[in-house]
């Protein structure tokens, strides 16, 4: 019986005008474009300089800030009030005010003050921008003071596993998970609800098909499609960034198989409770967004408040993202990923069991 139902699912999938194309294009889009736009490095900060001193040193400082690459000096204002207008109009993110007699104070007294003001509506931009600017000023300070020649302590940091601190290398494995969740969560859910809306599910319900057979017929196709999508992701990451997993691909496929099984199961549970496509979409988006924010895709789970960390255990995405990042960047093996293995297995059993139980052939 299952054979006939699977045949049907595959024929319908490949006959669909959009789905096969989306399944191929989406991984490429996600891997090639998302890492470039979802980037937390702050660049192009618009800086207004209020130079009340107009001396050699103040001009040198301005030049140094400009050449750093992080700041775009959008305007040079005559006074602080005028600079604030730029912030209010959103044409400027930060203000660097150089007071009058800046050069004289440095030369005479060996010390001088600078004022930095940041628009902190976007906290990250404000915080990081101030830190960058302070860093540049500190550097400038070191150059003009001639002290600390000997015995100066230099710290040279070494970053493990992602030596160039590339944000893309951190994001790409996690984005693969997002693509997988979209394809393998949404498609089975929308498929069943689609059958509810067209009425064909009633024709199936009036046959002696077993509940488990029916659920498997919806699960297996998306499991296979999930593997294809993941493979496309690997290829895209390799072609675009030369990123290949340090660990073994087999480990990734094993965990991906578990994840797809559990997340498709979740999609099926949604489809059993939704009666229209609209409801199903809405519920899927709500849960997917919750799962993504709880997963550590963008912000490390360890940075979350205590209660959120506890809540994050309900996100299947968290465990598979850990696996992909660890295997891709660190080369972790199966034995180091046992927690994820057990959690994903538990999710798979839980959601699929729920899906079979909540699927009603009789109302």
């Amino acid at each position, binding site marked *: 019986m299952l054979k006939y139902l699977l045949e049907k699912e595959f024929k319908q999938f490949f*006959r669909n005008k959009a789905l096969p194309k989306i399944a191929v294009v989406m991984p490429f889009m996600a891997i090639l474009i998302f890492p470039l736009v979802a980037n937390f490095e702050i660049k192009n900060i618009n800086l207004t300089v209020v130079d009340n001193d107009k001396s050699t040193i103040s001009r040198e400082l301005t030049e140094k800030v400009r050449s750093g690459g992080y700041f775009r000096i959008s305007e040079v204002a005559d006074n602080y009030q005028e600079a604030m207008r730029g912030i209010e109009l959103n044409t400027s993110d930060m203000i660097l005010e150089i007071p009058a007699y800046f050069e004289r104070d440095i030369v005479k007294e060996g010390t001088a003050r600078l004022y930095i003001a940041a628009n902190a509506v976007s906290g990250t931009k404000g915080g990081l921008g101030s830190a960058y600017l302070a860093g540049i000023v500190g550097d400038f300070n070191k150059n003009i003071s001639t002290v600390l020649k000997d015995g100066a302590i230099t710290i040279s940091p070494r970053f493990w596993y992602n030596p160039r601190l590339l944000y893309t290398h951190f994001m790409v494995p996690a984005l693969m998970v997002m693509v997988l969740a979209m394809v393998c969560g949404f498609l089975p859910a929308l498929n069943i609800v689609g059958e509810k809306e067209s*009425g064909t599910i009633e024709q199936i319900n009036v046959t002696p098909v077993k509940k488990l057979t029916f659920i498997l017929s919806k699960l297996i196709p998306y499991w296979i499609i999930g593997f294809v999508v993941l493979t496309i992701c690997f290829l895209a990451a390799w072609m675009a960034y030369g990123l290949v997993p340090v660990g073994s691909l087999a480990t990734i496929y094993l965990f991906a198989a578990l994840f797809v099984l559990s997340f498709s199961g979740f999609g099926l549970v949604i489809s059993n409770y939704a009666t229209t496509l609209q409801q199903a979409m809405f519920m899927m988006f709500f849960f997917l967004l919750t799962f993504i924010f709880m997963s550590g895709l963008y912000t490390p789970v360890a940075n979350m408040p205590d209660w959120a960390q506890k809540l994050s255990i309900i996100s299947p995405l968290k465990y598979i993202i850990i696996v992909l990042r660890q295997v891709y960047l660190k080369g972790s093996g199966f034995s180091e990923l046992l927690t994820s293995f057990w959690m994903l297995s538990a999710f798979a059993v839980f959601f699929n069991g729920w899906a079979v139980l909540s699927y009603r*052939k009789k109302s």
Partner: protein
Amino acid sequence: MKVIEVENLTKKFGSFTAVDNISFSVEKGEIFGFLGANGAGKTTAMRMLCGLLSPTSGKGVVAGYDILHDSEKVKASIGYMSQKFALYEDLKVWENIRLYAGIYGVSEKETRERTQLLLAELGFEKERNSLVKSLPLGWRQKLAFSVSIFHNPSIVFLDEPTGGVDPVTRRQFWEMIYQASERGITVFVTTHYMDEAEYCNRVSIMVDGRIDALDSPASLRKEFGAADMDEVFRKLARKSKNNGL
């Protein structure tokens, strides 16, 4: 031999009683017409008999199995054609036949052979590889009916099978129903067309969830002193509390 036996079957949705304590039985090979105005409870009653809906109270035996406890066994021995068009539109004609034949456990060899015969009988040979969505409604309904009896069920339930179909195709459809009946398949059919009611061996007329009349069309006409089934139906439907008259 009785293939459907229903006793005091009732279905309530909250405070609304859709099917109110109905009892009847259907003989093997009979064409049984199930009539009633919109909302009289026909579809609800039929869905209970097919094992798609649990009754609130009462009992029913279909094809020898209890509809409450053995609904999956009931499903294996019946065919069902719902009000909504229920073949897969994005599958071809032969693929739909193969899918449902496979689900009911007809062997692949038998399916292949009989698909040829069936398409020849329907005059659909050219449409074997057409997607179902490209067929006109009348053709689809004939195909859906053929698919619903492909596995030789002992009873077939048809829920308004000829709704929206032209008179010529309706005529052909009823010829197919007679053929099925000759093969020994009991036909349980709901309809709105009173001329179709005349084709049935016996008809029941539901009003507000109850069966108000049940007999052969000829006896019903006599009993109500009516010229045709249309008049019988209107006389009965007038008694309804919710017909808006």
